[in-house]
């Protein structure tokens, strides 16, 4: 059942897949015979749900590509700063390689409007991609990640606790487990107040083992909640392969066992993730209950990275030095990098005639400038006032300083 990545584990396979799109098919129908024969029926079946992505406006398609580029350059710029800028203090759970999941899924959501009408996203300890895709201001996020007083959350939260309700990004969460339960609670409230919002949880393969995974799915199904579980299966929870924590090859099988419709999609292809999410959002808004999407994806960098790293030492940021139980083989990393979400999105849009190579390059230049400007703005922001750490414990008042005795 479902998509199997090995069927199309090559660039050629992906191009072939893309050429079966309506736009591309019309454009190069005369050349497509060979390519079409490479496409596995299973892959096509999961990829082509409803054809929605192909029917989007050029502007929307370019926006999705832009989102991928913004996430990618945010990641790369941050990694570069960690390696080269002695004044930079932010750390990151890198999501480079996983951009197409956030970009495709959030493109199918309502991201602006009053808080009681926009769709709500609950994210993980690896949140920057989701935050950018949901519409969080990159400047503010960069400042928050560098602990600045004018950052998104005033320097209280930083990377693992980014939160911006104004765009429906309820927040990141440094813990593995509670997220989907909280999201089903939001979905429960949404249904009770007869809103057509949906609540989305992004989580990794590590969430499968937690009791929360099973509790969230069971209750979402029992109550028919407008809840979507997007499981980013990047194969590793921290440093351990997911086979240490889950007996299924496709974690989606577990969702089906709870009676929840589930899709397994190629998380490197933004149009596949969009299609699956579109279907799930339609289902939720129509009152037909939860959905589960497993996106097969991969993170290129370590589990996380921090300033002061030296390129090539202790894996910065190529391998996980703490991965004693199960190393990521370098060949695995390289194989996945051949199926890069930036390249796949770019090639598809060029193939569809939405962009040409020059326009794609111009877009990337523009995005890089925006990302550089965001980091530069953040670096100019003031540091926090120490005593403000006692604020925001409750809605009003301040905690009392106790450290002085």
């Amino acid at each position, binding site marked *: 059942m479902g998509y199997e990545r090995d069927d199309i584990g090559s660039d050629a396979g992906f191009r072939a897949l893309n050429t079966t799109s309506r736009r591309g098919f019309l454009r190069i129908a005369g050349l497509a015979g060979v390519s079409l024969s490479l496409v596995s029926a299973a892959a096509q079946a999961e990829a082509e749900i409803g054809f929605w992505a192909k029917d989007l406006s050029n502007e929307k398609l370019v926006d999705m590509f832009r989102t991928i580029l913004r996430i990618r350059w945010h990641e790369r710029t941050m990694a570069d700063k960690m390696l080269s800028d002695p004044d930079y203090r932010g750390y990151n759970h890198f999501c480079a390689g996983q951009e197409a999941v956030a970009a495709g899924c959030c493109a199918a959501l309502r991201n602006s409007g009053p808080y009681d009408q926009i769709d709500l996203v609950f994210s993980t300890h690896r949140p920057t991609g989701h935050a950018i895709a949901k519409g969080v201001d990159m400047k503010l996020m960069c400042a928050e990640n560098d602990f600045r007083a004018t950052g998104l959350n005033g320097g209280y939260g930083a990377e693992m606790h980014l939160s911006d309700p104004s765009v429906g990004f309820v927040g990141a969460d440094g813990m593995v487990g509670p997220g989907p339960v909280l999201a089903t609670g939001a979905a429960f409230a949404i249904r009770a107040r007869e809103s057509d919002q949906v609540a989305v949880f992004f989580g990794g393969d590590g969430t499968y083992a937690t009791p929360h995974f099973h509790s969230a799915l069971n209750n979402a199904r029992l109550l028919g909640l407008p809840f979507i579980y997007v499981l980013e299966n990047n194969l590793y929870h921290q440093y*351990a392969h997911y086979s240490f924590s889950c007996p299924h090859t496709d974690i989606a099988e577990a969702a089906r066992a709870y009676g929840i419709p589930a899709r397994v999609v190629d998380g490197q292809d933004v149009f596949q993730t969009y299609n699956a999410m579109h279907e799930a959002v339609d289902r939720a808004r129509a009152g037909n209950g939860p959905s589960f999407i497993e996106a097969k994806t991969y993170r290129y960098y370590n589990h996380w990275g921090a300033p002061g790293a030296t390129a090539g030492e202790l894996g910065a940021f190529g391998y996980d030095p703490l991965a004693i139980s199960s190393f990521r083989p370098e060949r695995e990393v390289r194989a996945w990098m051949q199926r890069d979400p930036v390249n796949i999105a770019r090639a598809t849009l060029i193939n569809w005639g939405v962009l040409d190579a020059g326009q794609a390059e111009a877009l990337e230049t523009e995005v890089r400038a925006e990302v550089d400007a965001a980091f530069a703005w953040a670096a100019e922001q003031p540091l926090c006032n120490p005593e403000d750490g006692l604020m925001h414990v409750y809605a009003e008042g301040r905690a009392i300083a106790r450290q002085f005795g």
Partner: protein
Amino acid sequence: MTEKSWMYAVLEAVQAEMRADPAMTWIFELTPPVASTPGRPVINLETEFGRKRVVNTGIDEMWMVGAVTGAGLSGSRAATYIPYQGIGMTFQMLQNHAGKLRHMTGGKASIPVVYVMEFTGQTPGFAGQHSDYEMDTAFAHLVGIRTVVPSTPYDAKGMMHAALRSPDPVVFIYPAGLRMLMEDVPDEPYEVPLDKAAVRTEGSDITIVSSGPGMQISLEAAQRLQAEGAGVEVIDLRVLKEMDSATFINSVAKTKRLLTVDMSYYTLCPGAEVIARTAENVDGARYKRIAFPDAPPPASPEMFLWMRPDANHVFDAARRLIG
């Protein structure tokens, strides 16, 4: 005798106990039971004892703690290592099961199990969930569970041997901020008792009581106070339950001044218990406690480092108390 880190010393004890008892098991997630130190062999419990006895599980602390508790009930000794992400998830199993079963069964149930609880090092930058040191009181509040918090590699090894040999469930707090601490530790097994505080320095002007991650700043402050001529008695609780009251009560009876130092939140911190027990038994003493404010640790290093107790705070507060 070799210089060892806290974790190397602990795993050396676990390794020795597992070699002696082929039924003993270890369950971990994310943090492999591996440690090394110069001049000694690398310890890797997973490769030495195999994956039937040493299990790398998914992220599910409830199961880890419940499973070792169940292993104990089945007659096997067992231990687990809960990284800081998940210690809250262990609570029901400890509070309502591990801590009560011996009593509820009229003494029939025995749970010879150790739960290593990693408490973060209160690292600047990681914010509320990854830099707190807040559950020591919560564990100490539970009945039927021994809660210890060794502050040195020597104590850590000896208390791990004692904990693994104890018929009672033991919460073994690992203050991860001590991970770089090294000291000479015997290579052979030995025990440090699970019910005794340690007097680290002797003096007659003031008693400073702390534990785990608060010990380093307390000792540093004591050194500076002693340099000024003050007699400082620093007591390392080592055990939060059953707390060794006699050691600090006897000390305060002598010094009449008690300063407690905790890295956990002010309200109900271990120092509050220390002060209460002392006040019940010593007349005419003066008291002060230092603790983290009743607020989550913020990410910003500027805010966080201002809020976290340090040696200057201890030094100044002790001076004021001595007057």
